[in-house]
């Protein structure tokens, strides 16, 4: 029993230490800073700007100015308003799509890794199948049959197809963790599988899971942007991807309207890039070996 007590306090100690180093790691600080700044812009911005980003508010094809910070579209819509609303959709898709794929991947990975045997064989097979399916192509076919597409439906179908690598990694980690002493101990004291997974196994791969969530979040945003760009974006909302699609459809390139296509792509790059950098920073926090490098 004393071994267990020691272990518990060590986990707590390590968590505090991680938090301490995480906040001090410049990569984590910069990455999170960018992600949060754009998030706040997307959350708060719409309250100060128009509720309907597609409204024709001003002169057509106007370059950025004091009044229209990012200029206007070919039709006279305010690009900045669209941008802010687009940020909102992107974060929503990222959180929801990433969240769904995380939950699926986690469930399948734990089930396969903890149960093993036949369950594992079958789940592993399914994982590998979804892994080789070219997700974007499948998503395009499915989306194109939907007459009405919302940000939420988009997030759901993205989530359904992007979980395999999380499942694989969780499965592998569970395999190694499930035979540890403290898991055996928990099993002997009569705890049941879900409880053991939640209490004993998950905390020991928390750092890994956190990093997976971050990658899934970024991946879902990229996926959504690609779908939107092909014209399969939400039919009722503005997103960063649809902005790019519209700008290309109305030849902003030839008209030199860079303010229309630069901001949305730049925002996606910033968000996803910042997420990756946060991840690298977190990796350094969780693996002290990397800190010195």
């Amino acid at each position, binding site marked *: 029993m004393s071994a267990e007590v020691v272990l518990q306090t060590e986990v707590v100690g390590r968590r505090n230490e991680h938090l301490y180093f995480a906040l001090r790691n410049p990569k984590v600080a910069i990455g999170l800073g960018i992600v949060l700044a754009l998030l706040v812009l997307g959350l708060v911005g719409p309250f100060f700007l128009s509720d309907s980003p597609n409204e024709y508010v001003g002169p057509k094809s106007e370059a950025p100015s004091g009044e229209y910070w990012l200029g206007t579209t070919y039709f006279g819509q305010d690009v900045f308003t669209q941008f802010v609303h687009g940020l909102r959709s992107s974060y929503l898709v990222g959180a929801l799509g990433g969240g769904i794929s995380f939950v699926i991947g986690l469930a399948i990975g734990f089930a396969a890794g903890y149960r093993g045997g036949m369950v594992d064989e079958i789940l592993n097979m399914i994982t590998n199948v979804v892994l080789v399916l070219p997700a974007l192509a499948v998503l395009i076919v499915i989306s194109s049959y939907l007459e009405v597409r919302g940000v939420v439906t988009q997030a759901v179908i993205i989530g359904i197809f992007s979980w395999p690598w999380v499942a694989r990694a969780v499965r592998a980690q569970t395999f190694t963790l499930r035979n540890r002493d403290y898991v055996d101990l928990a099993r002997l004291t009569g705890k049941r599988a879900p409880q053991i997974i939640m209490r004993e196994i998950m905390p020991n791969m928390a750092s890994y899971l956190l990093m997976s969530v971050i990658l899934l979040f970024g991946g879902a945003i990229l996926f959504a942007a690609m779908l939107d760009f092909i014209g399969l974006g939400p039919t009722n909302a503005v997103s960063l991807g649809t902005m790019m699609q519209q700008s290309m459809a109305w030849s902003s390139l030839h008209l030199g309207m860079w303010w229309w296509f630069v901001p949305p792509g730049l925002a996606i790059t910033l968000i996803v890039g910042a997420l990756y950098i946060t991840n690298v920073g977190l990796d350094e926090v969780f693996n002290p*070996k990397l800190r010195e490098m």
Partner: protein
Amino acid sequence: MTLEVEDLQVHYRTMKGDVRALDGVSFSLADGEIVGLAGESGCGKTTLGKSLIRLDGRMQHVGGKAVLDGAELPIGDDRAMNTHRWKEVSIIPQYSMSALNPTRKIGKMIAELLRSRGKSYREIKGELVHRLELVGLSEKVLDNYPIELSGGMKQRVVMVLSTLLDPSLLIADEVTSALDVTNQKAVAETLVRFRDMGFVKSMIVVTHDLSLVYQIADTIMIMYAGRIVEKAPAETIIKAPKHPYTKALIGALPEVGLEHGDERLQSIPGKPPQLLNPPTGCRFRDRCPLASDECAEEPPVVAVDAGHEVSCWKAED
């Protein structure tokens, strides 16, 4: 004397500060001597072994020296150490099972390694095959990839490879802990044989397992929290230990000669001190049943008998 280590200090550099994993270690090793190094997990055994052959990126040589065959080892100078490695100091690492490049045939890897050290594989191959046969492996393993061998076979390959150039000093770090009992015994005997046949001059055998090291070592050193607390002939350490820590270790052993006891070391109540900011005075004080006021001072090293040194205020009692 093959090896003389004097006041060796090696630290791990971390964000929080220096971990003093070796804090003033001194000992010597006679020609042909096998010395066992034992102590609880984290006391610095591996660090001591590595310090004598290769510091990793986070280790820093802070002070002290090691003299091998009359010449000082350039411990802190990675490049200068290179000429000594394998030829004069060699190691059988803790991780023998994974020490061989998985994607190279064993023979090819050895050939490439030898060539990179300016040796001719062709000239040495005869001896290599001879030694492989000595440990019960056929020449054919040279044509195998590591995964084609069992764990025990890989370990024997590593033992032969590490000693191929007849080093003066061999460090064997936990070479038996991953093996089952029969293999443990075979490996231990092989180590002794290598010494007897002159493949290596002297040896430091790092282990958790006092009963095993008792069978092969001439001398045993007990380490605690970055220091050596007792050194004596194997017999003496087991039968008449002086240091309270050693006594606790031995007391934890059910009966000498039985084939277990490795995990027993942990059953001493309490935990060893942090090496980040180690306490002053005797480091065993917190857990020592005999501790008294004077133990707040650094205990002296007392030679209680020929070849028996103890660093404890109560050593003479």
